[in-house]
């Protein structure tokens, strides 16, 4: 067993995400069990997107790199309406209740 595998094994034993995975993984402080669940939820989110087309609503926390998503949104808007991207910014509205 190599050193990496040995380290992974003790992480699994302690219900921790192995460092090797965390290094290439999404930002998270969850213990292994919830981390795996989170990973599955994220994959399902992307899978739905791939199979069913670009969604109307996005699960922002499901992104590996949400910054790219926000930039993408700005870029789409800028190109559609022919506005310089650096003149655009987001406006945030907070709702009291979740409306379906």
């Amino acid at each position: 067993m190599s050193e990496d595998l040995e380290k992974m094994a003790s992480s699994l034993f302690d219900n921790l995400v192995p460092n090797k995975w965390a290094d290439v993984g999404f930002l998270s402080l969850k213990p292994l069990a919830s981390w795996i669940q989170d990973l599955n939820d994220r994959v399902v989110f992307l899978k739905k997107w791939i199979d069913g087309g670009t969604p109307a609503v996005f699960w922002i926390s499901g992104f590996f790199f949400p910054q790219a998503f926000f930039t993408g949104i700005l870029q789409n808007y800028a190109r559609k309406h022919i506005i310089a991207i650096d003149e655009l910014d987001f406006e945030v509205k907070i709702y009291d209740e979740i409306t379906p």
Partner: protein
Amino acid sequence: MKQLKLFLDDYEVIPYKVLNYLGAEINYGGRVTDDKDVRLIKTILTKYINEGIMTDGHKFSESGKYISIPANVQEDYVNYIKDLPFNPHPEAFGLHENAEITTNQTETRRILESILSIQPRASTAGGKTREQVIMEISIDIESKTPPAFDLEFVIEKYPTEYTESMNTVLTQEVIRYNKLLTMMAEMLANV
């Protein structure tokens, strides 16, 4: 101390400004290389060296635990110091309450890591060896790890387009998740 006495004796009034400058910029600040740190030292020191400290009960911080006590014999000062909290709050160092959060988190993590590290490794309850337990967990995780995405398919269905940046976002996300999923699958298969 010698310097302090010299300045107190030589001046008619107490030269607070001079004392601050000596402390924050020369004696201590002179050794500090970061200018923001010097500024911090200056700010903290002004809290302690100012006209107010000659007033009895002058507060050095919000809570009023740290005050200027009436001048008396040395014993009074010693007793006052003995009464100070054993574990001082950040205010004692001129810092905000939030400064303690990081310290506490680090300390908690260290304690928990120590507890984990002294857990028995050789055998576990129920007669299973550590190796067996790891084997079971890794098989379980392996079964719960989703397969990597078909990148070719994604690129074909969602090609890079000038008007549709979301395609690029999706492709990049898929690449990132694939990197992780592939590594997990490889490592788990080798246990």
